[in-house]
């Protein structure tokens, strides 16, 4: 066994909540707001409605072979060579996703918090703890998530409570003023970023110790994460108005600057940065960990930890190469990336289920 750790179902729920909130807490409000204006929160509600069936689909696939990761049963279902090829595509998706998220985090740092620090320095520091997390393995990572989770929730509640006085219901009107189509256009990204990206958990399911309760805790985690995102998007529209939300790359950070309680509690936007650091750290690390574990399983290696340093180096360089500038990055991420997510979270599970069903039928006839 490459990974000996085991995680509990409650830990799984915490990890799912953190990863579905992920980077979405910072960047999600603006993407549906560009399309749906003041109805962006409805987009996210629809996104949750699309996302939960996707998440359910993932649990069905995860149940086919409870003791194996997706990379392993790819080969069982599709045959050795086709399975390996599909696994490598899946792993490259995980790796690209990790690189893109790393780029996103350092872009945020250099534009908002440390404008004079070179991007490389921030990337190297962040990559250091990512590699460390991946080397320590799933169990350690999940326990860290469990320790940080109460702080995460506390800061999130503080953030929401402090902003309620600034909310103005007029910003949300008129509801559905331009019909339902822009809202649905906005919901594509809202379904993809939090929920379709949970496909990485197909690499985690075999290490959960109560297999029969995975579905419940997985769905619960996605639902709670989705509710938090709906609250954040709705709040950002209530506080800033649709126009400002759509114009900002990081609307929730901009919104956090508006917190002002009795001329005493001012400029506490770092609260949001901390919330986001916690969630994006677990997202990148889980992706990166799944990539290393999956590569070792695809190539039938006996360890995976020695892969983390060389692939960390590639990750660092790739995160610089992902995009020439932030405009290009946002364009690609908001327009094309959702379809990439759907390819692996809908098409791949359907393919696996279809071939699995065909194989079963064929065997019975013989």
């Amino acid at each position, binding site marked *: 066994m490459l990974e000996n750790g085991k995680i509990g179902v409650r830990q799984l729920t915490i990890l799912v909540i953190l990863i579905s909130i992920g980077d979405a807490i910072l960047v999600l409000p603006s993407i549906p707001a560009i399309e749906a204006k003041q109805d962006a929160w409805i987009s996210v509600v629809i996104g949750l409605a699309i996302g939960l069936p996707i998440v359910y689909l993932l649990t069905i696939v995860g149940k086919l072979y409870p003791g194996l990761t997706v990379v392993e049963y790819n080969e069982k279902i599709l045959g050795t060579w086709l399975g390996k090829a599909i696994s490598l595509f899946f792993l490259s998706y995980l790796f690209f996703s990790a690189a893109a998220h790393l780029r996103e985090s350092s872009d945020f740092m250099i534009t908002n918090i440390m404008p004079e620090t070179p991007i490389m320095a921030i990337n190297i520091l962040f990559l250091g703890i990512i590699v460390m997390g991946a080397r320590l393995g799933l169990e350690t990572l999940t326990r860290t998530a469990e320790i940080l989770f109460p702080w995460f929730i506390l800061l999130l509640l503080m953030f929401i409570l402090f902003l309620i006085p600034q909310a103005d219901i007029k910003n949300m009107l008129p509801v559905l003023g331009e019909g339902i189509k822009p809202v649905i256009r906005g919901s594509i990204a809202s379904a993809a970023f939090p929920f379709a990206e949970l496909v990485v958990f197909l690499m985690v399911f075999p290490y959960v110790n109560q297999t029969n309760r995975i579905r419940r805790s997985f769905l619960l985690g996605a639902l709670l994460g989705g509710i938090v995102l709906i609250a954040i998007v709705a709040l950002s529209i209530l506080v800033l108005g649709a126009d400002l939300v759509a114009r900002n790359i990081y609307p929730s950070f901009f919104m956090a600057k508006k917190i002002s309680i009795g001329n005493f509690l001012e400029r506490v936007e770092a609260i949001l940065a901390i919330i986001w650091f916690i969630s994006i750290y677990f997202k990148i690390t889980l992706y990166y960990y799944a990539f290393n574990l999956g590569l070792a399983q695809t190539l039938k290696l006996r360890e995976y930890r020695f*892969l983390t340093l060389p692939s960390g*180096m590639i990750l660092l360089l790739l995160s610089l*190469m992902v995009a020439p500038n932030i405009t290009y990055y946002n364009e690609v991420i908001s327009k*094309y990336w959702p379809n990439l997510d759907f390819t692996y979270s809908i098409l791949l599970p359907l393919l696996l289920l279809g071939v699995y069903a065909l194989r079963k039928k064929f065997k019975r006839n013989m």
Partner: protein
Amino acid sequence: MWAIAGIIAVIIAIIMFEAPSLRRKQLRKELWVFSILLLIGFGLGVAISLHMKLPPALDWIIVIYKPLTDALIGLLK
């Protein structure tokens, strides 16, 4: 030039950190994968430090997904 020296130093450090235990356990396939990954890292590092004009890595996503995205957005317009 200094950047390339730095990359080589990092690679040597990684090799010194990981390779001895792999060699001791006689994991030959693992050593191959390890070297190939380091080679890819070295290539990318040199290309970036020499400011070569590389296409952005996200370009292939646009190439593959543009028809689908355009169709989907056209449908919802």
